[in-house]
């Protein structure tokens, strides 16, 4: 017969046995109805208390959150604005870089010339005149009459020079006339600008065979431009038997509305033939 040293030890043992018994009953699933019965009101009360607490906490803290969120939103909007500006600047740099790379390739392909690169910073205010203003002048060695090109072809020539800027007369200007040669037939003619910003070929000999797509290059005659600078392609020919000369329209290779960076050929000195003219 077991003997307990004290009644307290016997109580402890009984409690342990009861606890073990309850655990075993719970593990066996016999206590589930009883626990459900107890849990439902408990959970309901807890939910009620928790909801009220959440509401009170929201009431107290929400104004602060709105202020914080507004501040954060303003910060983020400012950050987005800054990043957008950066993206635009980078896109501009990429575009400039592409143009400069193409120009560099052009310079490498034409090593006989010396170039000064310049950016177009303005256009003549008069819609009747086709001139652009560039950010290089006599300080960089530019002189009146120097030819101006891009990687696509001839742009024009310098009409006026200041110390830090120069004005370039485009080949589309109505006062511009250039001696050209049609590459395929070898026929020589004159390319003149039109007031609407287009160019046309004049004084083409009647016997010259010209076709649409013929490439037009400078002939070098007259001494205003070096020979063999690309200008454009013939897009239409007008030949009438009773005319002395044929005429043709030309599509320049340079897009004059998108002119951003240009090259000035600095080692070409135009010849002044004014004194030789009768």
């Amino acid at each position, binding site marked *: 017969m077991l003997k307990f040293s004290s009644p307290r030890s016997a109580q402890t043992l009984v409690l342990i046995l009861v606890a073990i018994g309850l655990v075993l009953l719970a593990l066996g699933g016999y206590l589930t109805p009883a626990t459900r019965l107890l849990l439902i009101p408990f959970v309901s009360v807890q939910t009620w208390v928790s909801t009220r607490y959440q509401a009170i906490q929201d009431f107290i803290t929400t104004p602060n959150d709105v202020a914080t969120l507004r501040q954060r939103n303003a910060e983020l909007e400012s950050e987005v604005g800054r990043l957008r500006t950066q993206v635009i600047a980078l896109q501009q740099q990429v575009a400039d870089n592409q143009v400069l790379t193409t120009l560099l390739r052009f310079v490498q392909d034409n090593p006989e010339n010396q170039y000064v690169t310049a950016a177009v*910073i*303005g*256009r*003549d*205010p*008069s*819609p*009747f*005149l086709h*001139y652009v*203003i560039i950010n290089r002048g006599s300080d960089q060695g530019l002189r009146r009459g120097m030819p101006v090109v891009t990687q696509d072809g001839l742009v024009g020539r310098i*009409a*006026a020079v200041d110390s830090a800027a120069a*004005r370039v*007369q485009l080949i589309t200007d*109505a*006062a511009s006339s250039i001696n050209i040669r049609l590459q395929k037939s070898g026929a020589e003619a004159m390319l003149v600008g*039109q*007031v*609407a*910003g287009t160019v046309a070929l004049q004084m083409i000999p009647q016997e010259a065979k010209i076709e649409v797509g013929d490439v037009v290059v400078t002939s070098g005659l007259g001494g205003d431009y070096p020979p063999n600078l690309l200008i454009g392609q013939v897009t239409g020919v007008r030949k009438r038997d009773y005319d002395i000369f044929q005429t043709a329209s030309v599509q320049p290779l340079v897009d004059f*509305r998108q002119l951003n960076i240009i090259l000035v050929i600095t080692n070409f000195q135009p010849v002044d033939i004014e004194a030789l003219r009768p």
Partner: protein
Amino acid sequence: MPFLLSIPILAFVVILQTAILSQMPLLYGASDLLLIVLAAWSVRPRVQAYWFWGIVAVGLMTFVSSQPLWVTAGSYGAVILLALYLRRRIWKVPLLVMFAVVFAGTLFSHLLSVINLWLTVSLPPVFDVFNQITLPSLLLNLVLALPVYVLFGDLADWLYPEELTV
């Protein structure tokens, strides 16, 4: 003060014109901001420094443009003269004067440009010039006339405050 202000203001206008407005053509036409500014300035009843502003405008334009001096001086001089004439005749509706001056000034300016081309190169096709250059330029100038009128009206009111008689 109005004399001194003319140089920085008109220089800024010329920069805006050559760097931005001339790069935004409509067909082959472009607006002439300097002409509009001179019109907006000269039509205000109390403005007095109009000739000085005209001289500064002609000087700046001759500096940046290949247009001969006589074309620029003729155009801007005509704009100021017309504004002075009309502001006395139609003094109750200065906005109408503004539109009339810009309209007539643009046409006259283009007429002088065509004459210049005729004298120096050859007569350009007048119908094409009118359709592709003058009409779009006219539209752009009239669109810009209202904001420029308001802006330079405020400037004129600030520089020439109304005298109150007690």
